[in-house]
């Protein structure tokens, strides 16, 4: 880790001004990703601005639009266990609790979760060529060991996946990211927040230099009746997803009025296909219809040497999770196994 200076910001204005003053400054939230990367010398900062104490980003509150605003500095644990989130957005609670460990969730913040970097092995290996870490050096994963990599939205420049669980639920919920920067405040729809690698894989998202996330707005619809988060991984806890699915349904009897399905572990951003959600509208919530939706969602998926299995796995996970969403009181208990 390099030497750096450190200050605590008390307000978002102070944090944003600090970033404007020093282009080599970074914001420190929970530190669970930043400090890790700095210890590996993969990320450097001349100055850290600790934003853990900034005012105005520390609460979870109802917003004027009938939804909820999540403060950027509220921890993942406090968010997942918040009564309003548990009642109105249980899909989000479930997704957060599927990620990392209890200690890490006590530290990690909502803003930091959106900005965590990929877990691509070569990104973490300073000696390996990696376009995300050092643009123009090449992508070691293409011809290397690529079992955990993406199958959708890849480019010849980068096939990394975005590893967050929380963000898969936020994509399904159509959350909105609130941002403050030198030019003032703006909002970014969740689908536009994370990007595909294309030919600029060093950019994970659409946050501009000097901007900070202040909060995340959840729209009114929380799918609290019919939802499910399914995370498939090599070990049943404390492990990143190979494939994960967040499903929210609005039902009239067994007919689907509204469906949202987002996939994690398969792309450089949470993956949603609106045609598949449209297709499910008015259909029966049956394995057959979820299978057709899964085919639409995985359209164009391309596997690499070690990860082609993800295509079939993702399809099956979508179908299984659709069925699980019909009965969340049984399938979403903490500790419930991912089987039906």
């Amino acid at each position, binding site marked *: 880790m390099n*030497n*750096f200076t*450190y200050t605590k910001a008390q307000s978002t204005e102070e944090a944003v001004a600090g970033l404007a003053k020093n282009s080599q400054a970074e914001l420190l939230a929970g530190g*669970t990703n930043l400090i890790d990367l700095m210890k590996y010398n993969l990320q450097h900062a001349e100055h850290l601005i600790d934003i853990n104490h900034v005012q105005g980003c520390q609460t979870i509150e109802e917003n004027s639009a009938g939804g909820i605003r999540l403060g950027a500095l509220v921890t993942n644990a406090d968010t997942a266990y918040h009564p309003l989130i548990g009642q109105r957005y249980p899909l989000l609670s479930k997704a957060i609790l599927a990620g990392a460990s*209890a200690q890490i969730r006590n530290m990690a913040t909502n803003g930091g979760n959106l900005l965590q970097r990929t877990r691509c092995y070569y990104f973490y290996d300073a000696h390996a060529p990696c376009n995300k870490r050092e643009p123009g050096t090449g992508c070691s994963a293409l011809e290397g060991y690529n079992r955990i990599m993406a199958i959708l939205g890849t480019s010849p420049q980068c096939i990394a996946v975005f590893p967050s669980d929380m963000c898969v639920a936020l994509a399904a919920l159509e959350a909105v990211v609130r941002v403050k920067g030198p030019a003032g405040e703006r909002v970014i729809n969740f689908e536009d927040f994370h990007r595909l690698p294309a030919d600029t894989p060093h950019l994970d998202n659409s946050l501009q230099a000097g901007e900070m996330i202040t909060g995340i707005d959840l729209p009114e619809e929380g799918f609290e009746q019919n939802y499910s988060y399914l995370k498939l991984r090599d070990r049943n806890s404390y492990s990143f997803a190979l494939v994960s699915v967040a499903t929210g349904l609005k039902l009239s009897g067994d007919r689907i009025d509204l469906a949202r399905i987002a996939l994690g572990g398969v792309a450089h951003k949470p993956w949603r296909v609106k045609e598949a959600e449209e297709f499910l509208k008015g259909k029966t919530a049956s394995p057959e219809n979820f299978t057709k939706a899964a085919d639409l969602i995985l359209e164009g998926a391309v596997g690499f040497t070690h990860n082609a299995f993800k295509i079939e796995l993702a399809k099956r996970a979508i179908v299984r999770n659709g069925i699980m969403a019909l009965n969340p009181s049984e399938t979403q208990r903490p*500790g419930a196994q991912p089987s039906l």
Partner: protein
Amino acid sequence: METTQLSRNTNTSKIDCIRTVTFTINGQSTQLQLPPWVSLLDALRHHLHLTGTKKGCDHGQCGACTVMCDGKRILSCLTLAVSKDQSSITTIEGIADNGELHPLQKAFIEYDAFQCGYCTPGQICSAVGMMQEGKAQNRAEVQELMSGNLCRCGANSQIIDAIMEVYIPETHE
């Protein structure tokens, strides 16, 4: 020592960066002069010689460095000591009460919940936090909420046995 962390340098000299950190460690008010890149783990082990807290991976992956900070279990390896100015930290050295072992410590002995013992301080601090959080309802959930503490010796089932003995005695068979 913290000099191991001084590898890649910027123009910033160490002297310019030193800060005063005041925290309560195991009930005792403590002041340290530290550069900001020292982790809470290194501050405890190298600066305060509280070597009960262990460094397993130093990257957030094993839980050996778990301590309680303002009542919450956190990983001291991914925490900058300076960021915990004015906080209250409890390490494994502060878990016993005046020489009387904590019920979890007694249960770990009774259930043989360790072999090499390297993961044990983190396991116990984590279990203290898990019990205070009070979210786990049964053994499977205790296991899930203790998954951030790895044991390479494979004492996991005894560790969960020991925790269940203290946490939910009636459901333990």
